[in-house]
């Protein structure tokens, strides 16, 4: 699974004033100040200082009293009205459209996909549920308040004992409730569809069964201990099986992102029958206990990164085979008392392979894993493995099956917790490549201790929660824009705002490149200057990398560009990063969406909603001030 960034733990993050919350509060206060000042200035120009001052005070005071006098009953009344309005506008048609999409899903789902779970979840949640919900909520939210103004129903509403705050909150709340209901229906139907589409089974192929029967007929000493064959072709794929006829349980090989368990049972005639179970690892939610990755270089010295083998993406770095290079992860909180680790550690790893020479094409490369004490550096015997490229492979480290090689060459039995885990509960897992002139590549999250899975349904729900949070942002955004501009403009503004939300990282890199004139932290460098310089280059057809002469005009352009770039940076900071909310890929890949991530996303979305609510309230009040 690929996370390019580290997910911070929620409580330390939220309680650390240097990080998130402090800046969010600062942003909130700044916005309130800016809105008040703008309102005051507009009123000043229109009505003079005294009236402007009075009205600004009235708005601020009025808003404040509105807030403290918020009545959930009145908010609910507005929200109910919103739901009824939307229902009258036949919003339920979206649900029918969704059902149609599922009916014709085969048109969109490729049968040859290598990761059916990821593709199907992507289709159900990302392409259908997410987009449908967001688009319909966007349209409803931006058209609602302007419609009230147009129909003059707003005047009826404000004549009632309903404050502006209750009106805005009721609007947002109503849409959120409506969206939640729709999302609920869509995700439940989608979940059923997912189960029905992906769950399948196979049988052993006739040829393989024949081979097994032939083997059974041979004299005991001539019988093969491992038989290799295929399953039948179902759901457009089949699995290779390496079957041990003596074993009660066998597994198929991984194909299309999953495998099946094969159980054997003797029937009444004494003939062994093999049954293949439903897919394993297809719809699941692995829980990762992650560690911190460090490397040793060719001289055996500690380093942060391995070798770059020439890949453009620097997320994974590599270690060379049969050298002093190694990659080691330090895991903490490994306690004997934890029932999950009592018997040992289940390590899962994804390793990328880079060959400098072909070697044996059809044979995987050899590697070894060691357990090491971070303090004493006592290391276990090598636990050998064959590296399966880009596939999650697991290996169990038994608590009592380890050995330590003494200096005199003798070995002694060791215990995972007594010999390798230090007092702080930390342990190191080391990986080395055993194939000369070949390389193993890895990143921090590629090797982890697998904790017991959480339920897939719950993980699916987490994915839906992230869509819900996105919906919250869209609704807040739509409502706030519709409080001060007409519906089509609000629609465009919201779409533009959200579009920017998909590219916050890019915009940040772009602005940082121009302001700092050096490579950003991610190593990306964008050329071409700020908005004015870019415009100049477009008009004069000057390439972005071509340096401009340092004339007065160019200096002026850059001087104007600097505050504009800071403005861009500021706006960009205020835009929620939509990429962060896309946890559906993680669900599709079969990993548990970390709770810390969900909490931090919830915090950010609600904060954004709060800011939007206050802004909406301010803008509606400003209308009074400015008129």
């Amino acid at each position: 699974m690929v996370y390019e960034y580290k997910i911070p733990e929620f409580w330390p993050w939220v309680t650390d004033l240097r990080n998130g919350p402090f800046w969010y509060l600062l942003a909130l206060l700044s916005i309130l100040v800016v809105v008040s000042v703008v309102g005051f200035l507009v009123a000043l120009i229109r009505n003079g200082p005294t009236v402007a001052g009075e009205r600004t005070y009235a708005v601020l005071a009025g808003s404040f009293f509105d807030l403290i006098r918020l009545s959930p009953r009145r908010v609910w009344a507005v929200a109910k009205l919103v739901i009824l309005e939307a229902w009258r506008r036949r919003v339920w048609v979206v649900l029918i459209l969704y059902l149609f999409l599922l009916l014709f899903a085969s048109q969109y789902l490729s049968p040859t996909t290598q990761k059916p779970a990821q593709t199907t979840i992507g289709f159900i949640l990302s392409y259908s549920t997410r987009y449908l919900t967001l688009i319909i909520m966007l349209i409803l939210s931006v058209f609602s308040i302007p419609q009230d103004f147009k129909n003059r129903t707003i005047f009826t509403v404000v004549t009632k004992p309903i404050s502006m705050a209750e009106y805005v909150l009721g609007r947002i709340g109503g849409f959120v409730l409506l969206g939640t209901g729709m999302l609920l229906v869509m995700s439940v139907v989608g979940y059923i569809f997912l189960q029905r589409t992906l769950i399948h089974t196979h049988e052993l192929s006739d040829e393989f069964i024949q081979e097994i029967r032939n083997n059974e007929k041979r004299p005991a000493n001539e019988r093969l201990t491992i038989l290799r064959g295929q399953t039948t072709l179902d759901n457009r794929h089949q699995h290779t099986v390496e079957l041990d006829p003596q074993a009660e349980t066998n597994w198929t090989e991984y194909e299309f992102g999953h495998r099946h368990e094969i159980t054997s049972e003797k029937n009444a005639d004494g003939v062994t029958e093999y049954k293949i179970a439903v897919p394993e690892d297809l719809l699941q939610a692995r829980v990762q206990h992650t560690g911190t990755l460090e490397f040793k270089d060719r001289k055996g010295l500690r380093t942060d990164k391995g070798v770059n083998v020439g890949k453009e993406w620097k997320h994974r770095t590599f270690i060379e085979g049969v050298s002093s290079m190694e990659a080691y992860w330090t895991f903490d909180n490994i306690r004997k008392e934890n029932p999950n680790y009592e018997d040992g550690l289940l390590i899962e790893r994804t390793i990328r392979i880079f060959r400098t020479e072909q070697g044996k094409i059809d044979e995987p490369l050899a590697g070894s894993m060691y357990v090491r004490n971070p303090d004493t550096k006592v290391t276990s015997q090598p636990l050998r493995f064959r590296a399966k490229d880009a596939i999650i492979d697991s290996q169990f480290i038994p608590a009592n099956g380890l050995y330590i090689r003494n200096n005199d060459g003798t070995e002694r039995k060791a215990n995972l917790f007594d010999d390798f885990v230090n007092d702080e509960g930390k342990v190191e897992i080391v990986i080395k490549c055993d194939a000369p002139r070949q390389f193993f590549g890895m990143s921090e999250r590629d090797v982890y201790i697998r904790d017991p899975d959480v339920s897939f349904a719950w993980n699916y729900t987490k994915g839906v929660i992230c869509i819900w949070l996105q919906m919250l942002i869209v609704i807040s955004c739509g409502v706030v824009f519709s409080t001060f501009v007409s519906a089509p403009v609000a629609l465009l503004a919201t779409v533009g705002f959200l579009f920017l939300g998909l590219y916050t990282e890019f915009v940040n890199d772009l602005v940082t490149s121009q302001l700092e004139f050096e490579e950003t932290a991610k190593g990306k460098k964008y050329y071409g200057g700020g908005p004015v310089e870019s415009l100049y280059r477009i008009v004069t057809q000057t390439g972005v990398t071509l340096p401009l002469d340092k004339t007065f005009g160019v200096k002026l352009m850059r001087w104007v560009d600097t505050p504009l770039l800071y403005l861009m940076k500021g706006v960009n900071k205020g835009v929620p990063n939509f990429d962060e909310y896309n946890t559906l890929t993680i669900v599709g890949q079969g990993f548990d969406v970390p709770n810390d991530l969900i909490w931090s996303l919830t915090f950010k979305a609600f904060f954004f909603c709060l800011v939007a609510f206050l802004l909406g309230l301010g803008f509606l009040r400003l209308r009074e001030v400015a008129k």
Partner: protein
Amino acid sequence: MQNQGFRRKMLYIGLMVALLLPLSYLGQPAGNTKHGDEGNFRGLLADMRERDSLSQTSFGDIDPAGATMQQMLLGLNGIAVNQLWGQAQDAQKKEDWETLRIVLNQLVKLQPHYFKIWDYQTHNLSYNLSTEFDDVRARYKQVINGFNFMKQGIELNKNEPRLLKQLGWYIGHKIGRADEKVFYRKLFKDDWMKLFHEQESRPLEKRDNWLVAHEKFQLATDLADQLEAKGKPLQTTPSLFYKELSHSLVNYAETITDEGFEEPKLNDDEKKNPDGSPKTPEEITALLDKKSDKLRSEWVQKFTAAWVQADKAFQEFSFKRYFKTPNNRVVLVGEMEQLLKLRFEKQNALFDLVAGEEKKLIEDKFNAIADDNLKKLYKKPLAERTDEENAAVRDKERELSFSWQELAGRAPAGDARTQAKALANEITLLEEKIQEIDHLRSPLNYNYWRIFINAQNQKEMQLANEATFEAKRLFRKGKSYEAAQKFEEAFCHWRWVLNNYPYLRNDSVTYDDIHEYIKQYRTALTKGRPGFLNDHPDHFDTFPLWDIVAIVEKERQAESVPFPPLCGEETKHSTMAASIRAAYEAAQANKPKPTPAPEESEETKSEKKDDKPAEQNSGKGPEKAPDSEKAPEKEAVKDASKEVDKKAAKSPEKQEK
């Protein structure tokens, strides 16, 4: 005020209706135009769309999802496509193959009729993406994904022969030429996971990648011919496009010749006698040999037939496929030899008519040169000229050359001159045509393929291939001496081929291939006996392929190395391994210790042998070098063999590898 607004609205509606009516009239379904009926434009737009192949249906199957997406973007397709390309590249960079696949599917929905996208991304999937995986089956899956991606493109672009041709090319070359070709060809034949053939219901015997490639090339060729008949020219170089049809069969024949046959296996029942008792090892060996013979005979039959088929296809390409030259002349790529012959005849006829005037013409031109120094330079032998002098002579050469018309003007006045002028015109035309064919042939490497295919259809070549494979097979089984003997048999056949097709002997691909066999032969001879060849320095005196060794190991210019004679009945070429074995065994018997000599002694021994005078080695066989030039070449070969042998002495295991 309200009335004015209403009037304006009505005016707009009226104008819209006025514009829509003629548009509707013009846009009626196709076939409503009455040709020749002046002033009738009903269905004109549809007819024009059909005629110029602008309608969706004229491209291929309609993709409703793609068409909807294009319409929904309201002209922002360009931006969307740009965005998707960016996403695709990012996904590829971040090794997110599933996203890449999804994005590509969206991309082609927006640009379904753009040839380059299909071609580029098929190549990207089959060649770049497949190598990202370590497991050979995962790689194969990606290769096939690329092919299946291209198949979608073909469905949507039924009038694009280039896509069919490219698909054929990728199927042929990616499966048949990659480093993993042994695995790929097997997986492809077995249709592993039913990824490819199943959808096309292809019978088992046609599942060879080269045959499938040929099938695609045939479809591409037929389609291109149909389109050309409709006046739609091929949007690529025709000669390179059409040659693939025959080349796929050549590649097929070459591959199956090279692959040989699989080692036979016995099932449980075959290992038992009818009474259920197990067969003896001798019986099993005899049964396996019998099966091998059958398989060998089938294989020989198969590759012989394949070469006949390849030759037939090549002849069709050479003599039935017409090409238009830049001068709008229609030529056959294979007619050059015939034209050269004709030109030669006409040239002789012209010389007869002018009766020696060509020499006089040159003399006159020479005498016309004003610069006396230059005249002296012309008379100076080539070897004695400096570079500057050569350059000065070359500059003036054009002035000395004459046209056929000029020469014809020197013929005696009257009928003879008229006839000569006609001949001169004919020769000029022939020469132009020859030159144009030459230009056509050059990028195809036509001459090589013509000779190579012809040679492959000779009995001796078939025997050479058969014996070479058998030798390699014996070597694989660890039967070194038998392998060496078989190699010697093969080399005599190769000698015949190379002497009868000198062009092949001088071609690097051929001599490098043969040199590989020679290296294996050496290994077979010296396996476990380092320094062995040094004891027999005269071995290469009669080695039938010493010229290949000289060319490859001594880097001699192929053209300057003479051709050794054919293996004769009197020579001992085919018994070399046996005689060396006998000598070796005798030497082993006389030695006090059976262990191999230490490294130093081998080196010393080889040095001693090196000191032997060259005369000692002469007169070893009835067939000697054809001329005196051969001696130094042979020395070169001996030196090379010693070098190789020394290496073998130092690390026998490495040499075996």
